[in-house]
């Protein structure tokens, strides 16, 4: 019932939005600000309906109303409130809702701050995008034509043919399918909202550019659009950073960037938006680049919509294997993209002839030329990445069923582009604040070049850089850092408010250096033997059993419990066991791995985790997931995860052994057949004695009293032994008290010694004898492996140099952009109070 209300509210919001758009259109066309006010009221109504609908969705999630598909699919009873909250935008529909919500709030900002003549057309275009986004949530069915996917659809609507619904149409699941464990991370909670702030804000420069074209006022729009564009960029950058950081500390690929389409979806709008910022700034300064400012503002939002289309329509999966679960929004998303693109570019080319062009061309050594070239390079980089991401579509020009391009495609193209950019940042910054000719510029650059050269050479020597290309790249990166730092220092004393640009470019330079260092000089941490093996693989000397050359290096290492191994000639690494910890996730193991630097630094522990994935594990089949540990250092990070362990293998064997599970592990299956006849061992203990048996310690604490009710009739002796089974690897102690009794029946004496179980390790204990001579007892233990394996853990460890520089570069970029926001926003606010 309440779901129908939600659906109705979304429909009402859509209709209000549609009418607001019409009124804004008329207001813009006639410059009639009375009609604009009606548009504003409709816009407000739209926002109110949407907020109410969001409140209902939130309520359904918190009330665990699993009859709703969205609630069922993205939440479960065990989720804590904060993850229930984030489940709101966990799915495709909810994330659209969040996007529109943010966009609606920005609309109020525009109502307050946008000035005529742009105000009405800006609001018109803003509302236009919201009409399209809202249509994705409608869930209307007009004569078989489906429009949108409602977040309020029920399970019965989603899966009408499900067998459990056939038998009972009112079926409500008792629990939902829950949230993927990998996503239960605070980083992933805040990442989507910030991303959508970026997407929604990137609409605003588009709206202003369109308003400028509409009203044929091509210069004044830049000032109000600039702070919005800058803020959109900071938001996108923050979202990219959060996504990358999450991937780094949560996933096991050990990096922050993989050129994945989803990652590119936020990078490309950022790049083109940044290009737009450059031309807008130079347009404000020198009344050039009017055309490119408008074009970039349009393209940045087109990139947002295009990448949304790519990642959400299922087209990335149109080739044979990528069959995305798709909400059937393909046509709507396509229409959205085409309208935004065609209206944008159409109006641009319609007005092209009358767009102002500079009277004379800029000299090469001018801030105008440098800034516009820098912006063009950013655009080119964005286009290259779009090309790569579009491989399922554009790749069909070359082959059928195209695969994504190799990672090297992205790296090979972006490297030279960013190198040129790095040089241009310095030239541009120098020329931005002062006029130079070739000669005076060269002399001004002598000092920064000197510092750059010294640092580059030092890095090459210290870092043992052998690749010429990398040397050139490093030089460019350092040049960006030191050249811009020169400008920054000079500016900081005179006009600290204007340091945004140079600060941003320093961040860019740091980012370049950090990216190279952390990706090209990433070292797997292995012992000497593996290192030798890898060196042999590199020389092509290793062949496998079939005579083929082995090309895959080995990057893992097995550590046995308490057996230190020297790694990379630098660390003594010892596996000190694991702890079972159910407090965070049931069945989680925290492994303790000690690193002792051999040159006498302070020892430290790495504590990677392994846990069963709750959403997909069950009694017959545990799916293990890993949580790496990252030790962050100033110069390098150590990144380590556990790829397997004896505990995990035992658990899998146990499940495989019950016969109900799938074949978990072919290799251990073989071992099982070998050990089918578990050894039986009889061991003698005196009270208080501890004996090492394989990977256990067994301690006979003392005798204890046996309760007479548990004893057979006619018992002459009845006693229990208190025994502790100690498992040092996990520091766990299991206490058992096997019974020993002698009873008589028909004048015969019998021994009664029922087995006690330790199911965890599949061990059986029997108290089989008392030897009065030396006051010892005999315990018979079955299930102990005769040739026991010590506890082991398989680790994958990497040393990643200068990841800290990547983060530092990102933060400085953010800081630089923020300085610029304050500067441009401060100026705009003044104008607002004046008008």
């Amino acid at each position, binding site marked *: 019932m309440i779901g129908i209300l939600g659906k109705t509210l979304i429909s009402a919001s859509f209709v209000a939005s549609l009418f607001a758009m019409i009124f804004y259109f008329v207001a813009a066309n006639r410059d009639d600000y009375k009609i604009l006010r009606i548009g504003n009221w409709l816009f407000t109504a739209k926002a109110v309906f949407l907020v109410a609908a969001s409140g209902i969705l939130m309520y359904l999630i918190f009330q665990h109303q699993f009859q709703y598909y969205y609630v069922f699919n993205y939440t479960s009873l065990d989720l804590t409130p904060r993850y229930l909250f984030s489940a709101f935008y966990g799915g495709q529909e909810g994330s659209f809702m969040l996007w529109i919500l943010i966009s609606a709030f920005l609309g109020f900002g525009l109502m307050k701050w946008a000035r005529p003549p742009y105000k009405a057309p800006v609001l018109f275009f803003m509302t236009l995008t919201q009409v399209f986004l809202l249509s994705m949530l409608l869930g209307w069915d007009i004569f078989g034509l489906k429009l949108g996917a409602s977040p309020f659809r029920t399970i019965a609507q989603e899966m009408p043919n499900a067998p459990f619904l056939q038998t009972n149409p009112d079926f409500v699941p008792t629990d939902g399918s*829950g949230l993927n464990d990998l996503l239960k991370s605070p980083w992933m909670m805040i990442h989507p909202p910030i991303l959508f702030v970026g997407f929604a804000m990137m609409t605003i420069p588009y709206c202003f550019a369109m308003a400028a074209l509409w009203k044929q006022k091509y210069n004044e729009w830049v000032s109000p659009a600039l702070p919005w564009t800058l803020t959109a960029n900071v938001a996108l950058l923050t979202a990219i950073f959060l996504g990358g950081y999450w991937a780094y500390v949560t996933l096991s690929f050990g990096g922050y960037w*993989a050129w994945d389409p989803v990652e590119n979806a936020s990078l490309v709008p950022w790049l083109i938006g940044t290009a737009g910022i450059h031309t807008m700034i130079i347009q404000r300064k020198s009344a050039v680049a009017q055309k490119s400012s408008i074009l970039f503002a349009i393209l940045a939002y087109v990139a947002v919509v295009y990448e949304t289309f790519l990642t959400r329509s299922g087209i990335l999966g149109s*080739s044979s294997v990528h069959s995305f679960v798709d909400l059937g929004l393909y046509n709507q998303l396509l229409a959205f993209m085409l309208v935004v693109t065609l209206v944008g570019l159409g109006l641009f080319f319609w007005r092209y002839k009358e767009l102002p062009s500079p009277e004379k061309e800029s000299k090469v050594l001018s801030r105008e030329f440098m800034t516009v070239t820098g912006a063009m390079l950013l655009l080119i980089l964005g286009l290259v990445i779009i090309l790569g991401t579009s491989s399922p579509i554009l790749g069909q020009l070359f*082959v059928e069923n195209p695969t994504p391009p190799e990672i090297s495609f992205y790296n090979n193209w972006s490297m030279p582009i960013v190198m040129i950019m790095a040089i241009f940042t310095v030239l541009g910054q120098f020329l931005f604040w002062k006029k130079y000719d070739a000669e005076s510029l060269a002399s001004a650059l002598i000092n920064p070049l000197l510092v750059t050269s010294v640092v580059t050479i030092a890095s090459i020597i210290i870092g043992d850089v052998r690749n010429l290309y990398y040397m050139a790249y490093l030089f460019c990166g350092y040049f960006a850092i030191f050249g811009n730092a020169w400008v920054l220092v000079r500016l900081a004393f005179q006009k600290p408010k204007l340091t945004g640009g140079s600060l941003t470019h320093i961040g860019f330079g740091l980012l370049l250096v950090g990216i190279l260092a952390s990706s090209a000089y990433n070292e797997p941490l292995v012992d000497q033997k593996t290192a030798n093996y890898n060196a042999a693989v590199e020389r092509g000397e290793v062949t496998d059993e079939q005579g083929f050359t082995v090309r895959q290096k080995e990057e893992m290492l097995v550590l046995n419990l308490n057996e230190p191994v020297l790694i990379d000639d630098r660390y003594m690494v010892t596996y000190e066991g694991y702890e079972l910890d159910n407090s965070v996730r049931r069945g989680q193991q925290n492994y303790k791995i000690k690193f002792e630097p051999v040159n006498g630094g302070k020892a430290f522990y790495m504590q990677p985790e392994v846990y069963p*994935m709750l959403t997909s594990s069950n009694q017959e089949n545990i799916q293990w997931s890993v949580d790496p540990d990252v030790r962050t250092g100033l110069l390098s990070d150590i990144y380590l995860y556990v*790829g397997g362990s004896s505990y995990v293998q035992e658990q899998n064997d146990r499940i495989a052994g019950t016969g109900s599970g799938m074949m978990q592990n*072919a290799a*251990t299956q073989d071992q099982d057949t070998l050990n089918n006849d578990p050894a039986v061992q009889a061991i003698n203990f005196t009270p208080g004695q501890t004996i090492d048996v394989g990977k256990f310690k067994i301690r006979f604490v003392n005798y204890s009293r046996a309760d007479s009710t548990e004893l057979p009739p006619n018992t002459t002796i009845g006693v229990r032994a208190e025994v502790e089974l100690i498992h040092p690897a996990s520091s766990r102690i299991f206490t058992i008290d096997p019974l020993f009794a002698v009873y008589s029946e028909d004048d015969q004496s019998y021994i009664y010694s029922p087995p006690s179980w330790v199911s965890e390790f599949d061990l059986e204990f029997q108290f089989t004898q008392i030897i009065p001579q030396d006051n010892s007892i005999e315990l018979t233990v079955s299930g102990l492996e005769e040739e026991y394996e010590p506890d082991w853990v398989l680790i994958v460890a990497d040393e990643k140099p200068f990841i800290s520089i990547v983060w530092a570069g990102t933060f400085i970029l953010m800081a630089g952009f923020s300085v610029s926001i304050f500067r441009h926003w401060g100026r705009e606010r003044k104008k607002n109070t004046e008008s």
Partner: protein
Amino acid sequence: MKPKLIIGIVAIVGFTSLLMYNFGESISTYTTFEGAADRSTAHIPGTWDEEKGAGFSMETKRFTFFMKDEDGVSRKVVYPKPKPNNFEDADQLVVIGEMRGDIFYANEMLMKCPSKYNDDPGKFVNASES
């Protein structure tokens, strides 16, 4: 026509053709085990052949399993890393590597999992990413 314009057009055409050429080189087509025989790197989609099991060998430090490609041909696949998370869960696998004799050596493995949270349910994840 101004010479500058001509240079500009030549530069754009040159850049674009080089880019497109390189792009064409760096993508390949999804294939099958049979089709992989004459390629140095092949992307093969398929599903895990559950009946033949899967296992990580401690001696060779390799994860081995059988995969059925789209023609239904089942081949042994060797992957030089621990078993990826979600392996059993994956609806579909894409192995990237080369065929040597009857064994496929995968350098990379992508898995399509029924995702719970993603914006695009069923996104492919890199095996080493999940």
